[in-house]
Every structure is written in structure tokens, then in C-alpha cells.
């Protein structure tokens, strides 16, 4: 069995982001960039499946500019066998990302595709669902548990009401929640080894797909700031304030 993992390079989750002064977007120059957090869970799951002997090849794919090679090296340092950069200078909408991934999947023929449930920059939460529809494969979204028996997949997915369990079969597209597993740290020797693992670069134009934006960003602004509140001295004061000042209890 072969697993393909989609990883996105995003502003690190610890960075306090800044809106650009011309309101065209968010500053990403000279900002720490990392693997999108739930994509690390997808990588971890793929590597674990290989360690368990259920999978014999793992491939990571990212769509982005040259710098995105770093997230592929990180993926390979965590244990992914090889990777593919689909090169583009523009940032794509989820529909275009899914179409690009579908093309790669046509070539690579994986049995299982793992994505993060959501990119923490655009917060779209769409790509895996779109991809599964384009491929006409089953979809399992926001998963926090995966078991594979023969060609059957047993998943637990996190839903607003609690947990839903589904059975499906490969080939399938799954999107991972942060609770699926605990991603490993890449050790120094593995970081060195990853430098020698294969990383193919494909120009996006060669794939012959429509990646044009359907959405125009008019502006990006900072959210309204909350007015600073006060510190109260004790519980009595707090309850009095809530009762007679804020009038919420």
C-alpha cells in the first residue's frame, strides 16, 4: 500500500501575525514558516503505518514556491520516503490545490491520501473534501483514530456532537485532526538523511489544469480590538460587577 500526504507551508502557529500596511494581506516575509500543524499529524500517521508494515511507500506533496522545499525536507526527516514540489509562485485556492493534488494522484496511484483538516492560515477546511469528490473516493474528515484491516478502514471522526465512527475502504481521502497522534520530532541524523532523499520538482503549468483564482481579496484588516478591562481584587467584587455593572448574571 502507498500513502500520499499533502503538506502546506504556513506561518508558524506561534507567530503573532501582522496585517500588511497596504491591507493586501498578511506579512509572510521574514516570518517563521512551518509545516501546517495537522499536516504533521498526517505525516506521523503515514510513517507509523509504514513502521507497522501496512504501507510500503510514503510520499509527501506540497504546492508552493521554491521555499516550500523546507516543509518537504521536514516531512522526509520525520520519515517520509520521498517528496514532490509542485511549483507555483501564486497561492492557490482550495479547489485549485485539490485539482493539482488529483493530477499528482493520477500519476502516483496511492491507496490512501492524508491531509490536514485545515490550513491555519486560510482556515478553509475544504481541500480534502474537494479532493475526495474529484477522485470519487470515500472521504473521512477530522479523524482522530484510524485502523486498517485488509482493505478496510475504520475511522473515528470528531464532530460537533461528539465522535462518529465510519467504516470505508481504500482508496480513500482522510483529513487529520491534531488528536490523531503525536507527531515525532525529527532527530539530527534523520534531518541529515532527509537531505539525500528524492525531491522532485514539477512546474504547475505542465499539469494542464485550471488554477485561476475565483475569489478576489479586496482587503485584509486587523480585527476590532477589545477595550482593555479591569482586574478585580476578589470574588465578591467580581460577582458584584457582573451583577450590577455588566448585568450579565
Amino acid at each position, binding site marked *: 500500500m502507498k500513502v500520499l500526504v499533502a503538506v502546506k507551508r504556513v506561518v508558524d*502557529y506561534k507567530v503573532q501575525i501582522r*496585517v500588511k500596511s497596504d491591507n493586501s494581506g*498578511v506579512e509572510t516575509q521574514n516570518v517563521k514558516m512551518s509545516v501546517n500543524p*495537522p499536516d504533521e499529524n498526517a505525516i506521523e500517521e503515514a510513517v507509523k503505518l509504514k513502521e507497522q508494515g501496512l504501507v510500503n511507500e510514503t510520499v509527501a506533496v506540497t504546492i508552493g514556491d521554491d521555499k516550500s522545499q523546507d516543509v518537504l525536507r521536514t516531512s522526509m526527516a520525520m520519515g517520509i520516503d520521498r517528496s514532490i514540489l509542485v511549483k507555483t509562485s501564486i497561492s492557490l*485556492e*482550495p*479547489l485549485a490545490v485539490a485539482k493539482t493534488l488529483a493530477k499528482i494522484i493520477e500519476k502516483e496511484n496511492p491507496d490512501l491520501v492524508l491531509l490536514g*483538516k485545515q490550513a*491555519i*492560515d*486560510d*482556515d*478553509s*477546511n*475544504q*481541500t*480534502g*473534501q*474537494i479532493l*475526495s*469528490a474529484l477522485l470519487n473516493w*470515500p*472521504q473521512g*474528515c*477530522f479523524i*482522530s483514530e484510524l485502523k486498517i484491516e485488509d482493505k478496510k478502514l475504520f475511522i473515528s471522526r*470528531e*464532530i*460537533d*456532537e*461528539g*465522535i*462518529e*465512527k*465510519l467504516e*470505508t475502504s481504500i482508496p480513500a481521502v482522510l483529513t487529520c485532526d*491534531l*488528536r490523531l497522534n503525536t507527531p515525532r520530532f525529527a532527530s539530527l541524523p534523520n534531518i541529515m538523511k532527509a537531505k539525500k532523499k528524492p525531491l522532485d520538482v514539477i512546474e504547475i503549468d505542465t499539469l494542464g489544469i485550471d488554477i485561476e*483564482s*475565483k*475569489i478576489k*481579496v*479586496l482587503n*485584509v*484588516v*486587523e*480585527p476590532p480590538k477589545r477595550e482593555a*478591562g*479591569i*482586574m*478585580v481584587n*476578589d*470574588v465578591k467584587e*467580581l*460577582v458584584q*460587577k*457582573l451583577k450590577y455593572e*455588566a448585568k*450579565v*448574571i
Partner: protein
Amino acid sequence: MTVLVIAEHDNQNLKSSTLNTITAATKFNDEIHLIILGNNIDNLITNSQSLHKVSKILKCDHEKLENFIPEILAPVISNISNNYTHILAPASTFGKNLLPRLSALLDATQISDVIEIQSKNTFVRPIYAGNAISTVETNQQINLLTIRPTAFDKCEESGGNASIEDIQFLDTQTNTKFISREVSKSDRPDLTNARVVVSGGRGMENSENFKLLYELADKLNAAVGASRAAVDSGYIGNEYQIGQTGKMVAPELYIAVGISGAIQHLAGMKDSKVIVAINKDAEAPIFGIADYGLSTDLFQAIPEIIKELDLLNKIES
């Protein structure tokens, strides 16, 4: 121009997120249709006919629709989508699971988590965990939007008189089988609707201690929520998580107890009207957005608050 709203429900009742989404749909000043797909939904349909401003209900009642498998739902909706300029679903796990699939079938880019509708093709949505707000324009023939429920009021449930139209069930073959759903049962108000939310973080230390919060919540007729750290540590179920990768809430009163205030948590609660933070670390970032901060040990503070509330109640009665 007609707007289609996809109903979220449990085959018996509409979820309140559907009512928020209908209000969002009214911003287009056009006719609104509601599509309800499920199993044995006669009662649900009858009860939905009076929803304010909904002129037609599209009904598809089939046993294979019982568990809302998106592989089965999406083609049924896509089949009738030609009649609509906008299709809206709540930005709940139901809507997030389904609408992107429809977007693939219709080759349209979906706009996620809309918090404001400025015109028929201009929408506002948060990005980067709500640390930036983006206004976007599209000129697609069909616009797919997921609506953040907390950004729109619930629509009136009376005053309407919708007609009913049966639509065709398309039988999509899929290998996906529903096994079970573990739904937490609680007598407390629903987290996303509650007027007051009492939320606990890692500072609660264990699930046993969460009982303190349940007691406080019951005094305030509040829902209980949690940070991701509290859920990850097993203090409480995933359905209580508030934040970027959990639920969005905007109650009148949010009480954060033993929560540090990471941006991913703030993403889910900073639109609350009044925020209270209780944390023993006076430097905790949560105090930066709290209206009332109390820097003290929660295990001392919570029982005291419960006592004070009892006192207040006595005085009042």
C-alpha cells in the same frame, strides 16, 4: 435569484445553526428555499414550514440519507443547484464536511466561515484564527458559503408558510458505512447557543475537578466549554473544545478558568460580550482580552463564586 439553505438537523429537529444560516440568507433580499435531506423527516418538514421568510422546502426523505454521508448528500443537492445563485450551509462540522464536496461537483470555489454579507458577491471572513479579517469578492455563477452561526441571529420560527417540493433521491454507490455516533447527553444548554459559557483549561488538572465547573455552570444556567489542552488531557470530550479547531461561541458571558489565552483559543471566544478570566498567573495573555480579570487560584475562587451566587439568590428570593 433564489438562495438555497442546506438544513442541519438530526432527523427530528433543526439545529439552531440552520436558523442562523437562514438569517444570513435574508441579507440577499431574495427568495429563500430550504433543503432538508434525511430519513423519516415528515414531522421535521411540517415543523419547518413556518420558518420566517422561507418560501419553499425541498424535501428528500430516504433511509440512505439518515446519517448525512456527504458522498450521498452532495449529488442530490448538486442535481437541483442550477436554480440557485447562492447555496449556504452552517460552518459546523456538518457543513464543513458537505459543502466542499458540492463545490467540487459544481466547480465553484467555496467561501468558508462567512461572518458578514456585504452584497450578493462580497463577503467577509476571518483568517489566521481571526487575527485578520478578509473581504473577498467573487463573480461565480453559483456562490457557496459556509456561515459562521455566531455572526448571525437566529431567524424567527413563525410567520412563514413554506410550500413543500419533493426532490429526487440519486443513489450514489459508496463504500462508506456509518457505524455509530457517540453523542454526549447533557441537561445543560447547548454550547453554541448558551447565554453563559463556563470554560475550563489545563489549570483544572483533571476531569474530577471539572465537576466544580459543572456546579458553577448549573448556578448560572450555563454551558461548559474547554480549551484544547483540557480535551487533549482527557478532562472532557472533544465536543466541548472552543477555538480555531473547535467550536465558535459568542455568549453574553464567557468565564475562562485556568485557560492561558492562546490565540487559537481566543479565535473561538473573543466575540463574547463580557469575558471573565480567572487565572493564578497575572501575566496570562487571557487577561489582555478580559473585561474582568481575577488573578488567583481557581480552586479557591470557584467555590467562593458559587457561594456568592447562592447569597445573591437568597437576597433576591
